[in-house]
């Protein structure tokens, strides 16, 4: 049970069969995804190898500064990905989103690593960095979905929002529905994941632990912590970002700044 089978480079290359299947599907059905699949596959390969070497190095050095540097790189990269997906020019959302991600992700990782798992030191890279990776990966998608939804609904429902403003609503009251729908849209994938975990799918972290020889009963405890952490951190980050960005959708006279495209 404690033996893990190493994957050799030829065996790893054999996994490219799945990429070839995806490429063939795109080619046959003219999906136009061949370039994206190629780039995605290469990036997966390169980024994970890089991450593997970086983690090996950091785990060896046990340096707080290096651990925090990895954290900073991960958050900056996540922000770039969010910015790439949410192409909004009229509302300055990047800086508040970045700062919120920085603070909430750090707080979550410290809480899980230092308090729930109880590592010493609290930034023990073997726990701290994978925890961050899961939090950022999950929450980043939620933020992107929520931001896209908020900007879209604010434009589509601009007349309704203005109707409420004209009837004496403040900006929070006028955009309450837009706000709730945006946060909900971001949260639903995390909540659905909690519903299906263990029944519909075995999450990556738990699978990885089991594959590496961990007792499944230990692995599930970690997975429960991870699932709760993902829902909590996603809710916290999404709500803070949406509260700040929603305010920025309105001018000083609480007028809607977003104009139809």
């Amino acid at each position, binding site marked *: 049970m404690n033996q893990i089978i190493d994957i050799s480079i030829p065996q790893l290359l054999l996994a490219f069969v799945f990429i070839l299947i995806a490429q063939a599907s795109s080619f046959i059905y003219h999906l136009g995804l061949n370039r994206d699949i190629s780039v995605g596959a290469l990036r997966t390969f390169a980024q994970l190898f890089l991450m593997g070497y970086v983690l090996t190095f950091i785990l060896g050095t046990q340096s707080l500064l290096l651990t925090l540097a990895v954290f900073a790189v991960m958050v900056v990269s996540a922000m770039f990905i969010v910015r790439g997906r949410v192409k909004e020019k009229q509302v300055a959302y990047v800086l508040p989103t970045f700062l919120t991600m920085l603070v909430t992700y750090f707080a979550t990782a410290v809480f899980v690593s230092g308090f729930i798992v109880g590592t010493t030191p609290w930034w023990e890279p073997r726990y701290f960095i994978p925890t961050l990776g899961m939090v950022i990966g999950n929450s980043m998608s939620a933020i992107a979905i929520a931001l896209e939804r908020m900007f879209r609904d604010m434009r589509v429902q601009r007349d309704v929002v203005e109707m409420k*403003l004209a009837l004496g609503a403040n900006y929070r009251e006028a955009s309450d529905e837009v706000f709730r729908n945006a946060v909900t849209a971001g949260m639903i994938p995390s909540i659905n994941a909690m519903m299906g975990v263990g029944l519909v799918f075995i999450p990556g972290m738990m699978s990885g632990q089991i594959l590496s020889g961990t007792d499944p009963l230990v692995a599930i405890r970690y997975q429960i912590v991870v699932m709760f952490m993902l829902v909590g951190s996603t809710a916290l980050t999404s709500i803070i970002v949406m509260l700040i960005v929603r305010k920025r959708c309105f001018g000083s006279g609480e*007028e809607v700044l977003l104009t139809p495209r």
Partner: protein
Amino acid sequence: MTHLLEIQNLAFSWPGAEFPVFEHLDLTVREGAFILVRGASGTGKSTLLRLCCRLNRPQVGVILFRGRNIVETAPAVLRSMISYVAQIPQMTDMTVGENLLLPFSFAANRNKIAPSEEALEQMLAEFYLEGVSLGQSALKLSTGQKQRLAIMRAILQQPDLMLLDEPTSALDPESAAMVFSIMERLNTERKMTILGVTHSDYRPETVVALAYRLENRRLTLTDA
């Protein structure tokens, strides 16, 4: 009569536009007045009304409401006193009754007393909405019915000034006549001050109105 609204040297431009929509615009609205601003599409009539309740921001000029610059009043409080009814009436996905009472759920209107169900039913008749019940969906009403409902909802807050933005532009002649009749009755019976914009040739029959024309970026008095 005191000045309810004073617009002084107002100018507005859309971002990136070469020319302003209008400039050097002055207008005084006295309490109890019935003022119509006419003009072709795109001359800035709607923008003028939206500026009065801060739904848009002017580049130049001052708007005073009861002698006080409107930017010094919290937007929600200002809009509970100056009610704006948009050209296309908007309803939420709720019943007629819930839509009518919507303004009373907002913090700025919490000190106002919401009308009873009986009062609302009586008002529906006054607004030519006899066949409409408080429990039915507001989204299923015709555009003309929605427009009358939107005006009714706005006056339930008992604002000091009603801004009516082309209230009949999307209506058939019969519905338009009903809305014009309502506007005049609001002014004569409820002493409501009305500032409306229209591109129609409507001439009030039962009220003394001031008519202005907005064209070539200027506002001029045409009919006193």
